[in-house]
Each structure stands twice: as C-alpha cells, then as structure tokens.
C-alpha cells in the first residue's frame, strides 16, 4: 500500500462519479423523497425522540443505498485489472475515503432537507454537528466493508441489508444517544463528548479490521 496508489484510485472513483453523476443524484432524490414522505405523514408534530430517531433511520437507509454499489458498479474483469495493478489495502482505503466524502455530502444535504421540512430542534450545535460528522464517517467505513463482503455473495442488495443492520447497531445506538443529548440540552456535555470519542474509536476499529481482512475477500 502506498499513498500515490490510494490517490490514483480515489481520483478514478471521483472522476467516474462526476462523469456519470448517477449515484449522488439518485441518492439525493431518495433522501429528499423520504424526508418529504415523513413531512407529509407527521404533519409537523414531532417530539424530540421521534425527531432524532427518524433522522438517523432516514440517514441509515440512505447511506446503505449509497454504499451498496461500491464494489458492483464496475465489472469483475475490471476488478481483476485493479488487482494486478495495486495492493488490496490501497483499494479498500481509497474506497473508504471516497465513501466517507460521499457520506459527508449526503449527510449535509439530508440534514438540510430535514430541518427545512421537519423543523429544527437542536440545542447544543457543536455536539450535534460532531455527532453528525463522526456518525456519517463511521457509517461510511463500516458499510464499505459490508458492501465488500456482500458483493462476493450471490445476492448483493439483499445481503447488504441483512449483514449491515446487526453490525451497525453499536454505532447507531451510540450516535442516537449522543445526538439526543445534543437535542435536550448542554448539561450532559462531558459524558456526551465521551460518546463522540467512542464513535471515533469504533470507526478506527472498523478501518483497522477492514485493512486487515479485505485482502482475503479480494483474492479469488
């Protein structure tokens, strides 16, 4: 693995995306429609817990839809080509970086749709934004690894949901707890920042595991 390889692979992914601009647009439409459906169903009366849970559920489904294509977008033949050119570690790290960038964009826009339609209930802004950033980065790296596993099975899309829901739960529970603290007031702050630390730690564990395990998936 080296930095220039990662840069090239990342560059390739971004260029591919800008050329087709298919993933980002479809995901934004998906996020917008989901938020709009919630707006129509809830009619503006939403308490803090519901506001919080609803946002993270929307974001979870949106991110699964965004990341699931990571390893099936390009043909197996082309994967073989990359396999001969670069180390597997470079491939997974570049995919994680790419999906993290994608997730930050998606999270920002979903969040804007959400506060525009459902309303803004945030009390502690720095804490909430920290939860958003670390939550979406964590989702990105974990789902990238699950996408890599499920792309090797016979039913990519179905397997992605089945495999990712159970193991994303630690992250989801943590992020829901911490963002709820940011909604109900600042007095829990020291404990809350501890949770942000846990999110960052979980993300690190996932990245290290992905780095170690991906070569076994790649080899065929």
């Amino acid at each position, binding site marked *: 693995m080296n930095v220039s390889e990662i840069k090239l692979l990342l560059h390739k992914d971004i260029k591919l995306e800008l050329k087709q601009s298919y993933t980002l647009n479809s995901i934004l439409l998906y996020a917008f429609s989901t938020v709009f459906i919630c707006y129509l169903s809830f009619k503006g009366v939403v308490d803090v817990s519901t506001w919080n849970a609803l946002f993270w559920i929307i974001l979870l489904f949106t991110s699964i839809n965004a990341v699931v294509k990571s390893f099936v977008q390009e043909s197996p033949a082309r994967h073989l080509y990359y396999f001969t050119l670069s180390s597997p570690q470079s491939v997974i790290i570049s995919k994680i970086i790419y999906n993290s960038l994608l997730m930050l964009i998606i999270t920002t826009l979903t969040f804007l749709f959400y506060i525009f339609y459902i309303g803004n209930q945030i009390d502690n802004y720095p804490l909430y934004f920290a939860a958003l950033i670390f939550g979406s980065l964590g989702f990105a790296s974990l789902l990238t*690894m699950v996408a890599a*596993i*499920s792309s*090797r*099975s*016979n*039913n990519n899309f179905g*397997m992605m949901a*089945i*495999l990712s*829901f*159970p*193991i994303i*739960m*630690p992250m989801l*529970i*943590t992020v829901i*707890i911490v963002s709820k603290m940011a909604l109900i007031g600042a007095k829990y702050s020291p*404990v809350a920042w*501890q*949770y942000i630390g*846990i999110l960052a730690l*979980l993300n690190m*564990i*996932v990245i290290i*595991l*992905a780095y170690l*395990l991906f070569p*076994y*998936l790649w080899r*065929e």
Partner: protein
Amino acid sequence: MKGLWWKILAILLLLYAIVAGFLVDIPDTDIKESMRNVFFHVGMWFAMLAVYTKSFIGSIKHLNTNSLDKDILAEQSAKTGLFFGLLGIITGMIWANFTWGKPWANDPHLNGAAIGIVIYLAYFILRSSIDDEHKRARISAVYNVFAFVLLIVLIGILPRLSSSTLHPGSQDGNPAFGDMDANMRYVFYPALIGWMMLALWIADLKVRLKKIDSEIENNEIV
C-alpha cells in the same frame, strides 16, 4: 483417556452448581429467591461467549491456513453459541416476567443479547447464499471476525456507559456481579466455568459429527 478429565470436571461442576444453586443462602434483596437465576442465566451468556470465541479463533485459523476443517469448527461453534444465546434470552425472559412484570425491557444488556443473536443469524444466511465451499468458508470467516470484534465492543463498552440498566447489581457498570455475597460467589464461579466447559464440549461433538458427515459424503461421490 486423553481429554476425558475436563468432561468429568464439567459434569461435576454443573452438578454442584445445580444442587448448591438451589440450597445456598442468598442475601435478602428486593428480588428475593429469583436471584438464584443468576447461576443459570448468566452461565448461558458466558457459555455463548466461550463458543463464539472458539468460532472466532476457528475463522482466523481458516484465513491463515485455508483448511476446511477450521471452517467446520467456526460454523459448528457459532451454531452452539446461537443455541446458548437463545437459552440465555429464554431464561432471562422468564425471570424478567416475574421481576419486572414484562418479558422484555429496554435495557442495554437485552439489546446486546438480541444483537448477538441477530449477527450470527446473518452469518448463517451469508453462508447459505454462497455455493462454492472454499469461497463460502473464506467470506463467512471474514464476516465472522469483523462481526465478533464489533459484538465484543458492543457488550463490553456500551452497558458500562449508560446508567439506566435495570439489571440487579449492575449500577456500577459491572454486569450482574454486584449484589452477590461470598457464599453465592462460591457457587457462581464454578457454575460459570461448568457452563463454559459444557458449551465447548457440545461444540466439539458437533464438529466431530460434521467432519464424519462430510467424509461420508465425499466417499459417496467417489
């Protein structure tokens, strides 16, 4: 016979745990005699974690050596772990129904238990979705390693952080060990070791059975 002594030890420890578990004096707390459930219910979780760990080690060994025997070890241990996990949930639900008035409460321990079951159900679905046995072994091993580490993080860290658990003796964050006096501990620790050994024994038997099965299958094809 080699390897026989720990099986006999497991039986003796469990006999002791079951007999002493119903006879030992327990402290007079607000959950009364239902506290005896700790010798059986907590034992299930330790047994589950012991065989899940065995499955995790099997998966790592498979990734290193590519041997299908290690894959059988991982699969059958995970199956045994799932069984003990379900027993843990059932014993917990019966107890909770008497103590809390409902079989399921929103508690970090229960959420961890449920996730521990669902992760391994997903593992078996992943296995059944891949036909080629070498590919199936490798990919499910990757998932097993990945999921086990996250499960350990989940049940190790999160319950200690939240102060809202309903489990007795857990207020300082240590799962279920708090309220016990010395008498109970004399029964509790042997019980835990006994249940773990029993689970490892069951997993061992299942592995051997599966190996014989696959051997017979191979011979039939030839």
